[in-house]
C-alpha cells in the first residue's frame, strides 16, 4: 500500500546515502517579485469564502493584485483589466499547509548512518520534477514543510517550500521562512523495527540513548558556540591575528537552534519522550517549535501547551507499531481543547492529497467546530512554521495561496477545482482533464519514436553482423568500430541514441 510504504519509506532505505547536490539551492530571504505568469489582477466571484481568520462570507469575492490578496468582501466591483474566476456555488479556502512532508526529495530522505546528521540539508536535494508536487497541488496543498526521515535522534536541516510546479528547485523554498531541523525520538531513531542482518546495531538503541545523543550534541554545540562568541567578540574588539575556531558543519545548525534562528521539528510518539525533549530543551535554553506525529500528545497536552510548542499529528493512523498503539483519532481535539496549536500533517504524498478530509475527522472524533478543524490545515501549520503573516488565512495583504472546491472542503465529496499560489493558477482540474488527450497523444508519439529508433538500431546491428562467408572470424578493426558505434559505445554518439 502506498500510504504504508511511504510511511516507512524513509526508514526502509536508510542504507542509501543522501546525494550532496553540487547545485546549491539559493535561499533568497527577500520577498519574491510577482510571478510573471500570474495575471496582475484576478477577481474570484460568487464563492463561499472560508477566511479562517474572520468567518465565512457567502457569495463573496476575493481580489488579487500582484499575487497578494487585495480585498475580501461580499461584492467587489471588477477592476479594469481584471481576469475573473466565477466560482458560483464553490468554496474558497486558504491553501493547505502540510507541516510534515517528504515530497520533492531526490532519492532517500534518510542519512541513517549516524545518530546526528545535522550537517545534511534537504534543501540541497530538492527535486522540482517530483510528480507528487503536482498530485499534492491537486489536493489543495500550497505549502509543505519538507523534512528528513526519522532515522536519527538529530536529523537533517529542513526547508519550507511552496508547491510552484514547473519552477526550478531554486524557486521552491518559501522566501523568508525560518529553516528547521528534524529531531526524532522513540522507535525510529533507536532502530527498533529495522535491523540489517550481520550489521552491528547503531547507537542509540534505547530511549535513554536517544536522550543522551541529543544532550551530548548540544553540550558540544554550546562549547563550540562559546569559542565562536569569544572569537567574534575579540575580533570586533580589534584583536588581530586570531585563529578562528575550526568550522563544524554538524554543530553550526545546532548553534542556530540555540540562537533561536532554526526551528526544531521533533518526530515523537510516546508521552514520556515528549517530556524528555522538553526537559533537554529547557536545560540548553532552546525551544521545541513543533512536536511531529506526537500521537500520545493528548496525554501530556498541558505540558506541551505550557512549553509553547505546536503539535502536528495524524488524523487516525494507529497500531502500525507499539508506540502507535495508544494513538487515538481524538488526539487533535484534546490537544486543541488544552490550548495547543495543532495541525494535521500527511507524512506521505498520498495522504497530503486529502488533508482537508483528514482535518474533518476531528469534528467526528472530539467534536471540534468547523472552523477549528479548518485551522488545523491552514493557519495553525502556518503559525507552527512561522509564516502566518504571509499565508494560512484569507486576509488582505497575504499571499494569494487559495484553493477552490466544489463543495465544503470538510466533506468527503469535495473535489479541488483550482489551486493558486501567489495569485497564479498552478492546478486547474478542468484544464488537466482537457489536456489529457493531447498528453496521451504525445506519449504515444514518443513511444513510437523510441520503437522506430530501436528498430533502426537492430537493423543496423543486423547489417553489421552480416559476414561475407559462413565461417566466423574476428571482426576487422573498421567493422568493430562500426559495431561499437551502432551500440552507442564509441566516442561519437550513435544515431539511434542521438535520435532520443
Amino acid at each position, binding site marked *: *500500500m502506498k500510504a504504508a510504504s511511504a*510511511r516507512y519509506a524513509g526508514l526502509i532505505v536508510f542504507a542509501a546515502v543522501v546525494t550532496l547536490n553540487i547545485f546549491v539551492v539559493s535561499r533568497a530571504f527577500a520577498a519574491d517579485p510577482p510571478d510573471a505568469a500570474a495575471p496582475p489582477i484576478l477577481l474570484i466571484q460568487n464563492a463561499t469564502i472560508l477566511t479562517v481568520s474572520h468567518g465565512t462570507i457567502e457569495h463573496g469575492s476575493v481580489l488579487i493584485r500582484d499575487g497578494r490578496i487585495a480585498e475580501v468582501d461580499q461584492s467587489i466591483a471588477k477592476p479594469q483589466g481584471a481576469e475573473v474566476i466565477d466560482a458560483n456555488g464553490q468554496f474558497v479556502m486558504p491553501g493547505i499547509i502540510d507541516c510534515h512532508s517528504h515530497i520533492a526529495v531526490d532519492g532517500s530522505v534518510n542519512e541513517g548512518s549516524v545518530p546526528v546528521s545535522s550537517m545534511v540539508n534537504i534543501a540541497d536535494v530538492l527535486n522540482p520534477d517530483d*510528480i507528487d508536487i503536482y498530485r499534492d497541488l491537486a489536493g489543495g496543498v500550497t505549502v509543505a514543510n519538507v523534512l528528513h526521515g526519522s532515522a536519527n535522534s538529530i536529523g537533517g536541516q529542513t526547508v519550507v517550500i511552496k508547491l510552484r510546479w514547473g519552477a526550478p528547485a531554486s524557486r521552491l523554498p518559501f522566501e523568508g521562512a525560518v529553516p528547521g531541523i528534524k529531531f526524532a525520538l522513540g522507535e525510529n531513531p533507536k532502530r527498533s523495527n529495522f535491523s540489517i542482518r550481520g550489521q552491528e546495531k547503531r547507537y542509540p538503541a534505547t530511549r535513554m540513548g536517544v536522550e543522551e545523543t541529543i544532550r551530548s550534541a548540544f553540550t558540544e554545540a554550546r562549547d563550540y558556540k562559546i569559542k565562536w562568541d569569544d572569537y567574534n567578540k575579540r575580533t570586533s574588539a580589534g584583536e588581530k591575528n586570531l585563529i578562528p575556531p575550526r568550522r563544524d558543519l554538524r554543530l553550526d545548525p545546532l548553534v542556530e537552534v540555540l540562537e533561536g534562528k532554526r526551528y526544531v521539528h521533533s518526530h515523537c510518539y510516546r508521552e514520556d519522550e515528549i517530556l524528555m525533549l522538553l526537559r533537554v530543551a529547557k536545560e540548553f535554553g532552546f525551544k521545541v517549535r513543533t512536536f511531529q506525529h506526537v500521537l500520545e500528545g493528548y496525554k501530556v497536552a498541558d505540558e506541551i501547551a505550557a512549553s509553547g510548542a505546536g503539535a502536528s499529528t495524524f488524523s487516525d493512523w494507529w497500531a502500525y507499531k507499539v508506540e502507535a498503539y495508544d494513538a487515538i483519532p481524538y488526539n487533535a481535539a484534546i490537544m486543541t481543547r488544552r490550548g495547543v496549536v495543532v495541525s494535521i500533517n500527511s507524512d506521505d504524498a498520498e495522504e497530503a*492529497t486529502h488533508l482537508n478530509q483528514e482535518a474533518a475527522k476531528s469534528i467526528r472524533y472530539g467534536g471540534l467546530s468547523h472552523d477549528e478543524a479548518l485551522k488545523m490545515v491552514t493557519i495553525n501549520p502556518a503559525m507552527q512554521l512561522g509564516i502566518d503573516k504571509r499565508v494560512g488565512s484569507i486576509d488582505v495583504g497575504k499571499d494569494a495561496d487559495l484553493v477552490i472546491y466544489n463543495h465544503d472542503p470538510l466533506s*468527503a465529496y469535495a473535489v479541488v477545482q483550482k489551486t493558486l499560489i501567489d495569485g497564479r493558477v498552478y492546478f486547474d482540474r478542468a484544464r488537466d482533464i482537457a489536456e*489529457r488527450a493531447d498528453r496521451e497523444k504525445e506519449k504515444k508519439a514518443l513511444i513510437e519514436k523510441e520503437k522506430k529508433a530501436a528498430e533502426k538500431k537492430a537493423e543496423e546491428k543486423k547489417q553489421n553482423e552480416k559476414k561475407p562467408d559462413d565461417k566466423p572470424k574476428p571482426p576487422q578493426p573498421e567493422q568493430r568500430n562500426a559495431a561499437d558505434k551502432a551500440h552507442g559505445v564509441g566516442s561519437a554518439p550513435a544515431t539511434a541514441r542521438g535520435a532520443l
Partner: protein
Amino acid sequence: MNCSRATTMFHSLILATSLIVPASLAAQQPPPKAYALVHAKIFTLAGAPIENGTLIIRDGKIAAVGGQVEVPQDAQVINGEGLQIYPGMFDPITQMGLREIGAVGSTVDSTETGNYNPDVVALTAISPSSEHIPVTRVAGITEVLAVPASGGMDSFGPTGVIGGQASAIYLAGWTVDDMQLKRSVAMVVNWPEIQTKTFDFTTFSRKEKPYTEAKQEYDKQVTELTDWIVRARHYAQAIGHGAPADFARDLKLEALVPVVRGQLPLLVFADRSREIRNAIEFCDKQNLKMILAGGSEAYKLKDLLRSRSIPVILRPMLTLPLYEDDPYDRLLSQPTELSAAGVKFAFGSFDNSFARRLGQNAANAAAYGLPYEEALKAVTLYPAQIFGLADQVGTLETGKVANVIVTNGDPLEITSEVRYLFIRGQLTSLDNRHKRLFEKYSARPKP
C-alpha cells in the same frame, strides 16, 4: 405509524433508563426479545428509502421493515427521529483479528511462510478480542472478510502465491464461533508479478535483475500454480470415484477441491493490466471462478471483466496512481468508468487500522462521478453478492441477519456518527480503546 405516540414515548423512557444502568448490571439482564426502530428514514438498499419507517429486529433477524409496521408489545423501542438506518457496511478485504500491531511479529498472523498454503484458513487465527474490531465497528462496519496473505499496511516481503482461505466474520462475538459468518468464502491467490526491481529486506538494499530473469521466475510460479490446480483436479476425480483404503490424504489438494469444482472462487490479487489479463486467461483455461482484488488497472480490461462476469474488489481510492504519467485522479475516477461499463465492484480497505476509512473511500469515488447509490452499495450489498452472502447480509430485508446501523447522516461522510449498531440483532457496544483513552485523558486534571 400504528403505534401511538404515548407508547413510543414510554418505550423511549424505558430505553433512556436502561442506558444509564452500569454495563456490569446490564450484562446480567437478558437482552430484550425484540427491537423496534421507529420514526427513522430507512435506506433498505432493496427499494426506495422509507420516510418515517419502522424496522423490527427479532431473534437476530430483520422481522419486518416498512412504513406501516406494527410495533410488537415485547419490543424495546428506539426512537430514530432525525436519524437514518442503513445496512451495516461490509469490508471485503481486511486482516481483521489476524494482526494487532504491524511491527510486532508476535501479534501478526496474517501471512504464512511458503508459496502454497491452500489449507490455511483465516478463521483459525482470528483473535476475537482484537482492539481493531470495536474501533472498526464504530465506523459502521458490521462484517468483514479476514483475508490471509493480503498484504496490507506494514506488511513487507513475499506473501506467497496461494495464500489460504478468507473467512467472513461479524465484528462482534465472545468467541470466533459467534463471529463466524462463513468459514471459507474464497481462496487467496497473489498473482505473480514480473518484478525487475525488488527490495531485499535481509540486506536493506534495492535489487535489480534483468527482465529475462524476472520473466523466468514469473513463468515458474505460474507453472507451479497451474500444476497445483491440475493435481487438485486429479485429486477431486479420485475422491469422486471412491478412494481406495490406502488412499493417502493430501490436505493441501483437498483444500483446493472446492476450487476446481467451482464451489470456491479464487480471490486473485493483481493490479497491472498485464497481470490481470494473465490471471483471467488462467482462470478461463482452468475453468475457475475468479474475483479480482486490487485492480488498479481494471479499467483497461473493463469489457473483458464484464464479459467474464468477474467482479472486482477495488484497492482504496486513497492510493496514488501506479505510474507517474497516469492522471492524478486515475484511481478515483476508475469506479465511475467500471460502473458505466457494467463491471461489478466493491470497495475494500485492504487493511486493518485503516478499515474505518472504508466509507470515506466510497464517498471519494462518488465525489469523482460514481452515482451515490452505487457507492453505498459497493460497501454493503455488492461485497455480499460477490462473496455469495447476499442472502444473509447487505440489505435491510425481512429474513436477513440484522446487521444494522443507525446514523445521524450519510454513513459515507467523514463527519457522520453511528448512534446505534446491531450485529446479529444484538445492540452492540460503541465503546472502544480509542474512546476509553479519550475519556480518560479528557478527565486528566491540570498538572
